[in-house]
């Protein structure tokens, strides 16, 4: 369980043993979504630095993980993501405006500004509202999968989380429940080497994170998390097994967060420039571009065009979202319960009276 599955070899060609054999339009779609995700992150950081949004959690360096996993999902599957998985949302068809609206927390946000930025939620793709405490979504993913299995539906759930998440009680609970009940759940751990500042060596003394699956009675697999085809292949296989009633899988995707944990973090405190530079060499987007060029599907001009197109799509979406009005303040009291109880009606009326 400590060996790692890769598809794209150092020379840019695909390992025929592992190649998921995606059609050309899917390969290009994966590339476009990764480029879009990178452009989205760069813009969001710029917006935060300019004071137009308060906070952001970038995923640069990990695009192959969320986009590759997102591509393996099907309609009906449930997504229990972490805050760094907006790539999954993009891949599943969540509009840029929904994600940006969430960051702005204005009327363009379908979740009405209820959470700080990067706490995604989109019912239409069964992407469940993100929590800040890590791994709380894991047992929930097991429950959603249990319900699907009980009704005989051929769907799976995926729960994604970081290396830090594997230290939580919730990780243990969820893995154990999934093993006992053989739920169609894929545990997708994006091991980006750090939980904010703490390295993975301080999260576990185990030889890998994937090996932990063994203690719960199911498969653990390690995959190259900077290789979008490998991620697509491994997650796709695990989801297919889950839907076929073959139980859960733990996937450890080895990757690296190129940027800070969040816009509030300074990663130079805890890691060296050399280390970051070494991982920049393994950039998942450049690596996939090299593969696509080798296959004759892209060239320098189309790579540049894809980046420009992504940038322009983000720019347009920002324009739309920035024009939206603030969230109406009465909404403060809504959605606490199905119906507004008396004490919240009183509080709302007092607030309204104070504003008159």
């Amino acid at each position: 369980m400590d060996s790692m599955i890769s598809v794209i070899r150092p020379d840019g060609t695909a390992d025929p043993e592992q190649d998921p054999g995606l059609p050309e339009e899917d390969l290009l779609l994966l590339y476009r979504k990764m480029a879009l995700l990178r452009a989205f992150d760069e813009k969001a950081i710029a917006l935060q630095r300019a004071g137009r949004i308060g906070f952001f959690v970038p995923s640069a360096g990990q695009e192959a993980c969320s986009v590759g996993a997102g591509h393996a999902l099907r309609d009906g599957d449930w997504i229990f993501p972490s805050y760094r998985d907006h790539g999954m949302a993009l891949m599943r068809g969540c509009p840029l405006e929904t994600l940006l609206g969430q960051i702005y927390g204005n009327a363009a946000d379908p979740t009405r500004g209820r959470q700080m930025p990067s706490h995604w939620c989109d019912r239409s793709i069964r992407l469940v509202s993100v929590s800040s405490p890590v791994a709380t979504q894991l047992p929930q993913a097991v429950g959603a999968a249990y319900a699907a299995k009980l009704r005989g539906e051929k769907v799976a759930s995926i729960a994604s989380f970081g290396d830090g998440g594997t230290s939580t009680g919730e990780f243990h609970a969820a893995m154990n429940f999934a093993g006992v009940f053989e739920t169609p759940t894929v545990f997708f751990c994006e091991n980006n080497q750090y939980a904010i500042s703490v390295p993975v060596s301080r999260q576990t003394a185990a030889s890998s994170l994937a090996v932990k699956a063994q203690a719960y009675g199911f498969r653990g697999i390690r995959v190259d998390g900077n290789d979008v085809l490998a991620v697509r292949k491994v997650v796709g296989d695990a989801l297919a097994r889950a839907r076929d009633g073959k139980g859960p899988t733990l996937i450890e995707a080895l990757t690296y967060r190129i940027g800070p944990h969040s816009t509030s973090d300074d990663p130079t405190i805890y890691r060296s420039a050399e280390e970051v530079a070494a991982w920049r060499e393994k950039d998942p987007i450049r690596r996939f571009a090299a593969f696509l060029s080798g296959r004759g599907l892209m060239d320098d001009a189309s790579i540049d065009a894809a980046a420009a197109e992504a940038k322009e799509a983000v720019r347009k979406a920002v324009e739309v979202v920035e024009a939206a009005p603030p969230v109406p303040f009465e909404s403060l009291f809504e959605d606490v319960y199905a119906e507004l109880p008396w004490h919240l009606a009183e509080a709302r009326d007092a607030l309204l009276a104070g504003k008159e």
Partner: protein
Amino acid sequence: MPQATLLQAIHDALLEGMARDPRVILLGEDVGREGGVFRMTQGLMRRFGQERVIDTPLNEGGIIGMAIGMALNGMRPVVEIEFADFIYPAFDQIVSELAKMRYRSAGQFTAPVVVRTPSGGGIKGGHYHSQSPEAYFVHTSGLTVVMPSTPADAKGLLASAMGGEDPVIFLEPKALYRTVRGEVPEGEHRVPIGEARIARSGDDLTLVAWGAMAPVAEKAAGLAAAEGVSVEVIDPRTLWPLDIGTIVGSVNRTGRAVILHEAPRSCGFGAEVAALIQERCFLHLKAPVYRVAGFDTPFPYALEKSYLPDPRRVLAAVRAAMAF
């Protein structure tokens, strides 16, 4: 109408709820083969199968988390946490996940989970089998908190909780499981969430008490009556959202209020009830609003009887209010 214990009434509500709605699913520790440590779910696994009556691994956070996921995906999970004292490992899942799912998703996702748990003292269970944690959950926006004290209310409120759209913390006064009997309607019986029960009518003082303290309040009211004091006893049944209208109507008439609970006094739910009464009934009050409660100590084993409020302690507060 047939007589039943509180335990039988809750069992019947679960059985009928499961028979009526295939989305209802029970999960918890020992709820299946054993039928629960109090035998609340006895026979349900045999009847509905182990996929709907689930013996879970021993992890409360996992149980609540799993129930949330089931509810997101269309089920109606009813969780049993073996003792309310064991609910704290699931506190994050309850407070930040279950209670907030509707709000943080702006209604895109909801988690109508019922969390049943035996609460309160009176069984010589010491610190780990006797606590009354209702204040934590009343303090948590998004939760409905229910605590019945009669068999009919237990059946009717549990049926309402299972059929509702919001998560409910359903606290069961375990001291009353087998010690109270009462008439319970057969078949589907619902008591609306958010409506108090006037357990005894009176004119001189309003005594608010819930769970296992409701019968203590009635006994105290009997003692007061012997002294010529007419006490009205109100059992809120739903702690939150509280039926404040019934309480205010009563206190405005009697002019005196005593609140009784077995949870520790400071920041107990009684403090909130007292604050609401003084905000709304100030000019009708003839005496301070008094509280009779458990002490601000851990729940003791050997001295349980000294810890728990009894009718004499309640009567002392009633006398103080009358003499003020």
